[in-house]
């Protein structure tokens, strides 16, 4: 028998704010991925506009070390610094 996926199944799982950890945990991972991309774009933009690491860290509510470690040259794979 041909196995086909009913898109309704996947949609329903998501749309009901499921108590199923399989769906719930995945949603957290997806949201975290989106958040990290958003942060990376905003931090790059701030740096391009001349913002200091200190000011960026302040607006994000984290330490300067944390933001520099994550978004500075060392946090970029394939680049040294």
């Amino acid at each position, binding site marked *: 028998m*041909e*196995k*086909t*996926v*009913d898109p309704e*199944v*996947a*949609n329903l*799982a*998501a*749309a*009901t*704010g*499921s108590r199923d950890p*399989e*769906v719930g945990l*995945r*949603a957290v*991972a*997806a*949201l*975290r*991925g*989106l*958040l*990290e*991309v*958003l942060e*990376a*774009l905003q931090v*790059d*933009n701030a740096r391009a506009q001349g913002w200091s690491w200190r000011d960026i860290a302040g607006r994000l509510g984290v330490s300067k070390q944390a933001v520099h470690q*994550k978004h500075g040259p060392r*946090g*970029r*794979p*394939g680049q040294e610094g």
Partner: protein
Amino acid sequence: MESIPRAVYTSTATRTVSAQAQMEARRLGHHYLGPEHLLLGMLVHGDNLAARVLRANGLDLDTVRAGIDRLIAEGVLPGPQPSDAELLAGIGVDLEAVAGRLKETFGRDAYRQATERVRLRRTQPASHRAPRDPPRLVCARALSIAAREAIARDRDVEPEHLLLGLLGDAEDPVESEPYASERRERGLVGLPDHGPHAIRLLVEAQGLTLETLRAAVRDELERPA
């Protein structure tokens, strides 16, 4: 894992196999592209050396599809999965709208680069799939073996090299996976982190071994045209 000695191109047939594999992944409701999809892709494409060897050994399209359904039922492969967009819709976030706004503000390239950078971070990496992105490859070792098989014969990567890659990759259990990013990705898509590879199980279910199939592919490759 030794590195690939030089850049290598894929043949038209291999690109078709890959496109078919993506369709198979979609059909199964998977948001990743793994060895099992590539195996199906070869058979759907049909007119290539890999598919001929597979069929001659009893691994035709229907048999492999049934085998994959069985592995899904046994939990070796995941069942249909919601996409990032569907998961986020479930908690009230419209990913299409957010991604659209980000691309509009920062540009498509910046968005894509940020996604890759976040994924490849050594600490706290995070995965992000934009709506309608192609599925992410979860078969790095198989592709690396395929590339080296093609280079050793001074050819573009053909489906038969890809098959040698899938069979070579499946020799070692999942827990021997050399790429950290791939181990992470396996967890995110719901693939087990240990045990035999799906390809190995599919081959052995037909009473074959990985080595006999590989030998059959090599025989065909060495046969004068």
